[in-house]
């Protein structure tokens, strides 16, 4: 199988491109700079000879930076089949930001012109990378999307707030001074004349008999009157109609690779760890790596920080003379045993930290959080009057390694 150390590939036509995709691992294919020789490849390759530059040599020159970076991708990169890593590699190799393009041709309206197989999953992958701190996200636009199908192709228009018909019109209000009748003009209109519906008198002179102090919105469908129209939408894709306040809004961001992102994608260790714990990874964990525990936001592992803050001068109940206010080994052992018992898991890993320790629990955050109040209570009982502790669970944005005990 070809790998990323190829640097770049030249494809003559769409058939070539298809063959290349079949030959290459998906991640490698997504990362690889491509030079096309046919106009048909316009949206599928990085540069088209004849359109963007006159010669292949020129294209290679234009892509030399990308090619150099592609060759630096570690071999382990080819083992990873993950949208986020593919996108990170794509952006890092090209050293380019990911900026949205707005078009009415797609139901999403906003899309990211990444020429590879990510398709509509680009944004999801970019958000994951931003969560991990490998991309930075900058607000670009907010668009309204249909509450039914999520399409951005919606018509927003004024409508009757009572029956939601768009068949509405602004109508003047007429105030007849003599009898205080105040109603829409249509109530007064008799052909070309104005006749008061209350006192049946002709209104002959504006500002003497009557005036028009304002307007109302009248609905031709249900006849209701209102001061201002409602606002509603119609989805062009699924046909749903509803009030505008039921539209969902979607924030569109542009993304740029951070220094951590650049460092990670070219770091074989980071990629190896990622490959080890990727959800779909069929590869068995390397026994050599068992000594290292990786906390990966995608995995069902939760880090609980347990910290002790001394509240009195009496020292710890188990501390040796002369070592007051220090966290001694016996307290640590007892507390860790308590944590293991609490989670009924003897395999919990602990990592020392100042004034306490971290516990890595093989369970998802929600499950751990549910048990934290009980754990905290037990720990407080254990070290009562001598200390208080803080139990927090969190996921880190980027994988963090701890030496297991």
């Amino acid at each position, binding site marked *: 199988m070809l790998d990323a150390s190829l640097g770049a590939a030249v494809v003559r036509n769409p058939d070539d491109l298809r063959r290349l995709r079949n030959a290459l691992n998906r991640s490698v294919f997504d990362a690889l700079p491509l030079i096309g020789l046919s106009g048909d490849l316009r949206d599928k390759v990085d540069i088209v000879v004849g359109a963007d530059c006159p010669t292949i040599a020129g294209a290679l020159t234009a892509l030399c930076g990308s090619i150099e970076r592609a060759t630096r991708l570690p071999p382990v990169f080819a083992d990873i089949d993950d949208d986020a890593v593919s996108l990170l590699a794509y952006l890092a190799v090209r050293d380019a930001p990911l900026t949205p393009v707005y078009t009415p041709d797609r139901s999403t309206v906003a899309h990211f012109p990444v020429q590879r197989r990510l398709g509509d999953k680009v944004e999801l992958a970019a958000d994951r990378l931003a969560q991990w701190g490998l991309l930075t996200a900058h607000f670009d636009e907010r668009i309204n999307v249909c509450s039914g199908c999520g399409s951005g192709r919606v018509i927003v228009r004024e409508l009757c*707030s*009572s029956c939601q018909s768009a068949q509405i019109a602004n109508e003047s*209000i007429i*105030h007849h*001074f*003599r*009898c*205080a*009748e*105040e*109603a*829409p003009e249509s*109530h007064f209109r008799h052909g070309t004349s104005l006749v008061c519906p*209350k*006192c049946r008198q002709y209104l002959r002179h504006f*500002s003497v*008999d009557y*005036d028009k*102090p*304002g307007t*109302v919105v009248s609905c031709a469908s249900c006849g*209701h*009157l*209102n*001061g*201002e129209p409602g606002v509603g939408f119609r989805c062009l894709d699924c046909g749903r109609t509803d009030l505008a306040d039921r539209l969902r809004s979607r924030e569109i961001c542009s993304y740029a690779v951070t220094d951590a992102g650049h460092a990670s994608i070219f770091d074989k260790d980071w990629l190896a760890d990622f490959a080890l714990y990727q959800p779909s990874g069929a590869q068995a964990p390397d026994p050599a790596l068992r000594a290292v525990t990786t906390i990966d936001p995608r995995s069902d592992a939760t880090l609980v920080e347990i910290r002790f803050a001394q509240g009195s001068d009496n020292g710890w109940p188990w501390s040796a003379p002369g070592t007051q206010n220090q966290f001694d080994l016996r307290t640590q052992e007892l507390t860790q045993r308590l944590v293991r018992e609490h989670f009924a898991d003897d395999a919990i890993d602990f990592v020392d930290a100042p004034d306490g320790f971290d516990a890595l629990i093989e369970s998802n955050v929600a499950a751990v959080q549910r048990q934290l109040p009980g754990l905290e209570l037990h720990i407080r009982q254990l070290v009562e009057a001598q200390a208080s502790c803080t139990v927090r669970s969190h996921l880190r944005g980027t994988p963090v390694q701890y030496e297991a005990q």
Partner: protein
Amino acid sequence: MITVALNFLRALGEVHVLDLFLVAILLDFPRYLLGFISVVGATGWSYLRNRRYEQDEDFVLPERVSILLAGFNEEQTIERCVRSLREQSYRGDLEIVCVDDGSIDNSFAVMRRLERAGLIQRAARLDLRGGKAAANNLCATMATGDILVVVDADCSFDLDAIREILRPFHEEADVAAVCGNIMVRNWADNLVTALQQIEYLITISLGKTLADALGFVTCISGAFGAFRREAWRDVGGVDVGPGEDFDLTCRLRLAGHRLRFARQAICYTDAPDTFRSFFNQRSRWERDTFWIRFRKFNYTFNPVHQRFRWSELFNQAEFMVFTLLPALIFPIYLLYLVIVLPGFAPVLILAVSIGLAVVDIVAFLLALLLMGRGEYFLLLPLAPVAGLFQAYVVRVMRLVSYAEEMIFSRSLDDNYVPQKVRVLSTWR
């Protein structure tokens, strides 16, 4: 002097007491006596009615109810009003329709915000002020309910207020309109507002209960009144003000509609808190009443007029005997005492005042008994003051207002109604 006055009262024979309290006995006593009768009757009726309450407390009208809220520069008050309406215990179909009558503050922005929050259903804005009457008519046009409840934007309501004002519609199909009860929200602020609370308790809570029992609800307050749409449409809605609420009530009665008073439908309003603003408000009310009764509806005195109704003549007579006549006679009576008994007049007036104060205390206690609102018992020491204030000050003010209206047509200068409308008012 008080001791002298009391001794004087004790020394009087029965005949002399009659002479001394001639005005009070002729004019005030019947009112309170009738009030007392109404209390006894209404309390018994209320007991029976309360038993019915428990059976159908959560009644729901089949009709939609529209609350009409027209306001001018009500930015500060409208939200409180709307929120108190949304707190109501009534669970039927209820919509709130607002019209901003050309405000120059942020009233409409507040309305829009409340509309977006779903607290009101419709709101319209007028760029030019047209007056309360026109704005209420527009509200009614925009509303979709069959029962229209007109409220003032500066009012707030007891939790059961809407339910109670709708109860007569629920109980009797022929009721066309219902008047709500008004209380003073700021009654504890100062003497002026406290005196007005006492007056409202006696004249509205007690007085209108009597009027309701006799079938003569005089005025459905513009601050809180409910109307069937057919009746509203029948009389053409509100006419040009001022005094448009009283005018509408008169037209409903003249059209033969049945009106009721809902004593337990309580609306709170801020009363004027200075004597100056109090007199301004009352002068305006008195002028409006005088003109509507004697100019716009002068045909109620003409038995050959096609719209003449004996019941309306009775209503006019009640006003003339219990309101207009005391205002005219009382100063003359005092003048008579001073002229006939110059040296003894102060003692005599004081003696009369003590007698009146006793009557006022009784009336106030009756009103409290009727309403069952113990918190107002604190006002008891002020009840005689309120009575004397009404007798000596408000009556004189009323007389002056009537004279102004009769001679100068001052009501046409009130800026409560925009100038463009005033010049065309049909009852000018």
